[in-house]
């Protein structure tokens, strides 16, 4: 066997190489095992209120971003678990970890290019992070560990109120390009009301001025259940979007008459034979009864009532076409 006749130094080198490679293999495999979120969960996933993160919509922990990526100081091997301070959950540690991947965020002034921003919140990261030294986790507390019953992993509005004054002027933060209708960019499929717009209030407010959510949060007394996103909103916030139909003294949880999504009358080009009531009908704004061919700008006709088009209410001033079509569904192609 040529092995035996090999010079001693070669054997020594061979042994050293095997030992070094072996050590590397061992350490690499230990690091692989201990960096897996399931390893952390052997302790942190136990007990009555485990730290186990519900699978994050934003950072799917088991495939892309694990516990280690947020909680370990950059550059440290997970191997040395016993290293004091190796793991931390405090804002400086976690926020520094965010910036490792999202390095451009601290200088970003706009919200373009965001993967998720369903509520169209306009926040200047540069102002908050670079200029005021906020930690990422001050707002993005729920990125991985969202313990709400319906986790969204999005920042919650009340986190803003830790520093900012509370406000019911939704457009202050939720973007000026979005109509003040309470759609807020939520996909229409999520809307539960008839006519694909938030319903008006079909009952008088007499005796119901405490809070709408008293009935509408849990759906007591047959009231339609408010979506989870509405939690914590006060009556003035409700009424900012759900207009109250005055004079209707009979509380009806749901409208008894079927709500037409298109008017039953086709408007002739000159003389309107049907006058729309001054208040918005129960069920929301009317759909568009005509095709959109050749009608690029709604306001040309509907601002002034040209050619018998129903005049848009004063509240609609300044809205653009896309805003109109957000609420007034064009049913005809």
């Amino acid at each position: 066997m040529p092995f035996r006749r090999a010079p001693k130094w070669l054997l020594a080198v061979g042994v050293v190489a095997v030992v070094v490679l072996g050590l590397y293999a061992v350490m690499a495999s230990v690091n692989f095992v201990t960096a897996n979120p399931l390893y952390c969960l052997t302790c942190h996933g136990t007990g009555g209120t485990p730290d186990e993160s519900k699978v994050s919509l934003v950072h799917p922990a088991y495939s892309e971003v694990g516990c280690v990526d947020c909680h370990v100081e950059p550059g440290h091997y997970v191997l040395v678990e016993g290293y004091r301070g190796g793991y931390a959950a405090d804002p400086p540690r976690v926020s520094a970890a965010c910036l490792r991947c999202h390095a451009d965020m601290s200088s970003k002034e706009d919200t373009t290019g965001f993967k998720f921003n369903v509520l169209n919140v306009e926040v200047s990261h540069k102002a908050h992070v670079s200029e005021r030294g906020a930690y990422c986790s001050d707002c993005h507390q729920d990125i991985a560990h969202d313990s709400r019953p319906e986790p969204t992993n999005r920042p919650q509005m009340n986190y803003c109120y830790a520093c900012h004054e509370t406000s019911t002027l939704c457009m202050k933060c939720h973007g000026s390009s979005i109509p003040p209708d309470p759609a807020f960019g939520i996909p229409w499929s999520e809307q539960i009301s008839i006519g694909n717009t938030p319903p008006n209030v079909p009952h008088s407010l007499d005796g119901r001025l405490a809070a709408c959510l008293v009935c509408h949060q849990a759906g007591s007394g047959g009231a339609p259940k408010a979506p989870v996103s509405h939690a914590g909103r006060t009556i003035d916030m409700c009424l900012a979007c759900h207009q109250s139909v005055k004079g209707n003294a009979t509380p009806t949880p749901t409208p008894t008459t079927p709500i037409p999504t298109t008017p039953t009358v086709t408007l002739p080009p000159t003389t309107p034979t049907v006058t729309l009531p001054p208040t918005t009908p129960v069920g929301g704004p009317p759909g568009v009864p005509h095709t959109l061919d050749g009608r690029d700008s709604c306001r040309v006709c509907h601002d002034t009532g040209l050619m018998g088009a129903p005049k848009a209410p004063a509240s609609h001033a300044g809205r653009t076409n896309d805003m109109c079509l957000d609420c007034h569904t064009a049913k005809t192609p």
Partner: protein
Amino acid sequence: MSSSEAGTAIAAGVRYGMVVDLRRCTGCQACSVACKAEMDVPLGVFRTWVKQIEKGEYPFVSVSFLPSLCNQCEQPICLRNCPTRATYQLENGIVVVDPHRCIGCKYCIASCPYSVRYLSPLKKIAEKCEFCRHRLEDGLEPACVNTCPTGALVFGDLRDPDSNVSKVLKRNPVQVLKPDRATFPQVYYLAADSEAMEARGASEGQER
């Protein structure tokens, strides 16, 4: 202790301690439950509990209590005996266990004269009362102190002469558990019954 007191107490030179006023303790075990809830303590083990004894024969009977928790000793035996220094003492006197470093040898549990440590059945590491230091950082009191309905638990900075705990200590005769063990515990008992303070073992229903 007011939250403003706690908030400023995170500064240097603080030494936390507690007085358990047995004149006020009713044995309601609210402290025990609050601790369980706050720290997610597993079933079967306790970070704090209220020992209860009955003395005498009817009609000459009395009930005595002894809320027990980690005394955060000045010279803790557990600290000296921990082979990996997983258990260490903070500047403010709280003895803590680093859960990532503990190897579960249980030497600290065997060494503690007050039996306040336990091995977590879920995580297999040593755990004990840490005076709710996460609450202290936020300017709150420990959960047990916060929940005690009679105010039998007085918590604060022993080095601050104006804190509630210092005032109670200065005005009342107090004692500690097992002073002969040279541990210098920082949980003081006011009007504790000597037979309640004795080591009595588990009660009937607690035998496993």
